[in-house]
């Protein structure tokens, strides 16, 4: 049994100009202690697919799937109230845009402690201590002092780390990390990736990592899914992906690394339509 198993997921949006199919029948699974990386085109449905698993899409979205189970529980059949007990606790997500996911009206300390109160019922002293510990783990200096800051008083990368602290606060069984290190310099990125890998080893956490950063894929992933225009183009073990990419889209993507610049312009792939090679 997989920790998370999703079969034939589709998501469409009702817009003023008709229906838009953002995710067109995708299978995803991940096991405990495993790292699945999802890479692919900007706008290919990576975030939307994971928000569908979390049950966090807006009402204009229609989600369907043949199967969606977490830890043996059927997420599709589950009541909204039961789902709320799992989401944020056993399944947590680091959202792509930290500034829009944090509440500007509350200190970051309050927001982290609120997660601990709601899901774990910790008392005030324990919450405070755990919040300090979490900020420290994500590399924020003077954590006790920093808990009093509001999001607008923090840098982009500091807010991103607050989001990470909130997501790992309850030691989730599954962590979905959507571009978790985009605002971090590589030294802190390394510290965060090491932390996530350690949590995996210690708690058997499963990790889905959405990223555009090929280096992050190479340094963390066991398995990789490549997405393009709402479809899965390829799925492969990480080594296989780098040594023998099957789909022409994957090959084109890897070719666009800035290190591969020839002359003073980079290779691009606009106008090409790629076929899946799953």
């Amino acid at each position, binding site marked *: 049994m997989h920790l998370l198993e999703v079969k034939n997921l589709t998501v469409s949006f009702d817009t003023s100009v008709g229906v838009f199919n953002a995710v067109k029948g995708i299978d995803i699974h991940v096991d405990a202690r495993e790292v699945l990386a999802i890479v692919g085109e900007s706008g290919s449905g990576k975030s939307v697919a994971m928000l569908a698993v979390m049950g966090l899409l807006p009402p204009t979205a229609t989600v369907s799937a043949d199967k969606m189970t977490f830890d043996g529980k059927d997420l599709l059949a589950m009541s909204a109230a039961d789902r709320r007990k799992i989401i944020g606790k056993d399944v947590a997500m680091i959202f792509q845009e930290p500034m829009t996911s944090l509440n500007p009206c509350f200190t970051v300390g309050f927001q982290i402690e609120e997660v601990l109160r709601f899901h774990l019922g910790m008392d005030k002293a324990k919450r405070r201590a755990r919040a300090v510990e979490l900020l420290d783990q994500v590399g924020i200096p003077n954590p006790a002092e920093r808990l009093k800051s509001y999001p607008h008083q923090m*840098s982009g990368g500091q807010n991103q780390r607050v989001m990470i602290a909130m997501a790992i606060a309850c030691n989730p069984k599954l962590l979905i990390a959507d*571009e978790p290190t985009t605002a*971090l310099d590589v030294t*802190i990125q390394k510290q965060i990736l090491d932390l996530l890998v350690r949590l995996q080893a210690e708690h058997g956490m499963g990790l889905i990592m959405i990223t*555009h950063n090929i280096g*992050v894929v190479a340094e963390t992933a066991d398995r990789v899914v490549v997405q393009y225009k709402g479809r899965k183009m390829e799925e492969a073990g*990480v080594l296989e992906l*780098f040594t023998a990419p099957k789909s022409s889209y994957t090959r084109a993507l890897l070719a666009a690394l*800035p290190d591969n610049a020839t002359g003073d312009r*980079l290779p691009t792939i606009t106008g090409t339509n790629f076929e899946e090679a799953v």
Partner: protein
Amino acid sequence: MATVLEAKNLVRDYHIGGTLFGGGRTVHAVKGVSFKLEQGKTLAIVGESGSGKSTLARILTLIDRQTDGELLIDGETIDIKKTGVTAAMRRKVQIVFQNPYGSLNPRQKIGNVLMEPLLLNTDMPAAERRERALDMLVKVGLQPEHFNRYPHMFSGGQRQRIAIARAIILKPSLLVLDEPVSALDLSVQAQILNLLADLQDEFGLTYVFISHDLSVVKYIADEVMVMYLGEAVEQGTRDKLFSNPEHPYTRSLFAATPRADVESIKARLAKKAALASA
């Protein structure tokens, strides 16, 4: 070549907590940064998360005022406290914010987001404004049908491209880009970097480009500045910085950059397998 931008010992302190009468504490976000940038060149700024890069970007684009030090644009000292920001300065200087969603009005359709700067700053007729906006949309890899959509209907990387399109539509002579490609897949990133290079060649635009991605910096920069704890700890030409990094923080950046070569992946997988069977 003319010097477009000059910073002389720029300082920015934030006072947080406390009251009108004192108390609280002071964050020294930028501690005396100086540099000169010539027309048509690109200065890349890299540095630790929280080291003052976005704070500096806001000062350079006249959104925020330095606590101390002098800012010169086209050789003239700028003091927004005395003169305010004139329409001419707005046309000249643009910024792409690190957090694109926060900088977009949720109730404004994307077409209007792009046409607004043209409406406010030029006497272009409506039909031409529309054409220019559509053209720009396509140049950043979006589609004409996106014209009537609202910001929340886009993916993270699509919103980032909208912010870029809005900033370059007036062809500002000085453009400050704060992590502008962090949410883009490699192929779209290549397209955007090429577009910026084209604009620079054609119109002699000057860029300040903040990024955590050293391979992007290596591709795009003429000059590089490394920030650490509010200070510019190393400055120089791209070639010098990449071939002979001097400051320990710069060196730690190179050391922490994730490696995507096959040998490194193999070594990591072997280590994980060994840990799992132990």
